[in-house]
């Protein structure tokens, strides 16, 4: 076990720092809508211009093929420079759609989409969850029936982040009539401008509108948009979720180390006080989260269940840090601010992308080998 960055790594760190400090927007971007899209696109295109987009993607697809050491250094510098949150509307394209296409897409799909993603030209969303299928994703019922060289899609998705401003959607649908659970699903590329799609934006509890319900009424999608094999979508979807749980969250996790330092500065409290003790504990936990991030990244092999340990620790720590902020703010906790907004947003951490209860089930059943509570 060792944690030695090479001279080359250190030189990389310095170049990343200098570029970020010179280029990262100082102000937070807009929260939702077209202005959020424009802001995220401008930032990604700027990153791309100077070679900072998709640094971990293979070179043949326009990335830099950098090793994990350099990626982690990039994100450490990224959060220290307070560059825009990685969880903006480019998150799905850069961290799910792109890597999924690289792993399972056809040459045509790769040729068309990957460059557009890296440059920031196309924004993607993820259409997995449905009103009746959240934690139980495999029960989904939106259907796609083969009609000639097309699929005809009917049904609805919900909680689709950025559906209102996305160009494409990773859409998981039931394509084999009468199939059950994980079988008979397909992962398809859906053009959000297709006829028959209606998007109903939904406001969240923080007052922002970045998720939506999406209705499909006889939407025709070419069969050439299926990624992986027809009816083999579950396997493709699991590739994507694996990405999400490993590298994609790195920027978010490291960002908590910055937030806790900001909070300590905000509190200006004597070390012995009650809040001082709480902040000390949170700082220690943020240090542990960073260590977990390093371990998961440099461990081989890493499974999706390892990701669950980190994801759960992250989610609950993030919520604790934001709750502490509300205590520190006093009466200002009643006003709208970056802290109070992020506090309300933090409620989603234990829901989105697999709830805390589901993560605990995964840890108990898949890592610890405890018996399952419900039949599969």
């Amino acid at each position: 076990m060792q944690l030695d960055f090479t001279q080359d790594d250190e030189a990389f760190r310095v170049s990343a720092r200098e570029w970020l400090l010179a280029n990262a927007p100082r102000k937070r971007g807009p929260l939702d809508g077209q202005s959020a899209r424009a802001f995220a696109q401008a930032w990604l295109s700027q990153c791309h211009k100077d070679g900072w987009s998709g640094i971990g993607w293979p070179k043949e697809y326009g990335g830099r093929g950098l090793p994990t050491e350099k990626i982690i250094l990039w994100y450490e510098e990224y959060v220290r420079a307070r560059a825009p949150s990685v969880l903006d509307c480019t998150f799905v394209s850069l961290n799910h759609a792109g890597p999924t296409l690289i792993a399972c897409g056809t040459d045509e799909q790769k040729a068309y989409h990957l460059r557009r993603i890296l440059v920031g030209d196309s924004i993607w969303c993820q259409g997995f969850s449905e009103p009746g299928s959240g934690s139980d994703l495999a029960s989904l019922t939106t259907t796609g029936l083969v009609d000639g060289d097309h699929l005809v899609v009917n049904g609805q998705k919900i909680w689709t982040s950025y559906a209102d401003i996305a160009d494409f959607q990773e859409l998981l649908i039931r394509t084999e009539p009468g199939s059950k659970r994980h079988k008979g699903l397909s992962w398809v590329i859906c053009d959000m401008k297709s006829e028959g799609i209606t998007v109903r934006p939904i406001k969240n509890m923080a007052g922002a509108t970045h998720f939506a319900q999406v209705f499909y009424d006889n939407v025709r999608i070419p069969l050439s948009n299926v990624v992986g094999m027809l009816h083999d979508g579950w396997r493709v979807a699991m590739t994507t979720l694996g990405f999400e749980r490993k590298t994609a969250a790195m920027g978010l996790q490291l960002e908590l180390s910055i937030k806790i330092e900001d909070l300590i500065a905000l509190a200006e409290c004597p070390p012995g006080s009650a809040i001082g003790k709480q902040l000390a504990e949170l700082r220690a936990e943020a240090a542990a989260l960073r260590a977990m991030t390093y371990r998961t990244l440099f461990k081989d092999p890493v499974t999706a269940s390892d990701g669950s340990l980190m994801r759960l620790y992250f989610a609950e720590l993030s919520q604790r840090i934001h709750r502490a902020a509300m205590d520190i703010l006093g009466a200002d906790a009643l006003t709208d601010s970056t802290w109070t907004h992020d506090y309300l947003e933090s409620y989603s951490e234990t829901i989105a992308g697999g709830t805390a209860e589901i993560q605990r089930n995964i840890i108990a059943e898949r890592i610890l080998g405890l018996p399952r509570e419900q039949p599969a």
Partner: protein
Amino acid sequence: MTCDMNYNEDQRQILDAANALLNTSYPLSRLQEEKPDDLTALAEFGAFALALPEERGGTGFTIVEEALVHGLLGRHLISSRALANPIAARLAARLGRHEIAEQVAAGTLSVCAAVPADDSLLLIDGAKATLGVVFGGRQVILIALEELPREGVPGLGHSVVLSRVRGPLSMIGECTDSSLLDTSDLLVTAQLLGIAEASRDMAVSYAKVREQFGRSIGSFQAIKHHCANMSVDAEALSALLDMAAIAVRDERGDAAFQVAALRLLAPRVAFANVRTCIQIHGGIGFSAEADAHHYLKQVHVLRQLLSGNTMLDLPAPLAPYTSINERN
């Protein structure tokens, strides 16, 4: 005298009547309209006259019944003006300003809650209020708001309605007397209890109907235990509230101690229950389309109205005899 922790007939009646009124005039669905609550129906019901002695137009009920009613007001997420009102009435009466007290209790003068923030005051849902009660730690202050210019301030999650006032305040009077602060805290914590219970109920109903993996989510132990935890905490808080209300009504020696315990527990329990309620609802709980988030924001508001922590400054009603301590 005997001991009896059950509601008597009068108490049950007032609870039923208040509940009926709240269900018809203040259903939770009204919150989607984002309009300030009109408190006229509550005033006509006599909810605010509970604060006055009978000889001045009061109803003859005590703080125990008033706390029960405030539990329901919390449940229905009635504007914090309904809390500022009885505190203003009591404060005015203490200051000898009975004309103000009576108008406030009748609901003809509108009062809002206010909290100090740096060099200004934040008025909560007080755009049209003529009086304000400043909840400032171990003191409450009654102020006249009429002429003060107000500046709208975006509130927490864009749903807490706030305005800011600055400059010299026109003070009607203030009070640092623990008995008024205890009364105020009792009503605030009663509302917090109402929210803790309502969020438990909302979560439990949802856990019964929402199905995943072919069965109701309430059948999963994780959800069951969440619900059980919410229930235990709410029960403990509710028992403490009743005991504290009796102690305050009867001016017992342990009243301040019981209220101090409430001040600590009520926000903690309310926060925990509301958080769990949101969590049990999954995605819809995080959206603004379910009502759970309104509970959360109201807990943040109510918490600001509590006076300071005194838990370790007060003698406990049940403590070891000092003589035995000395012997050891």
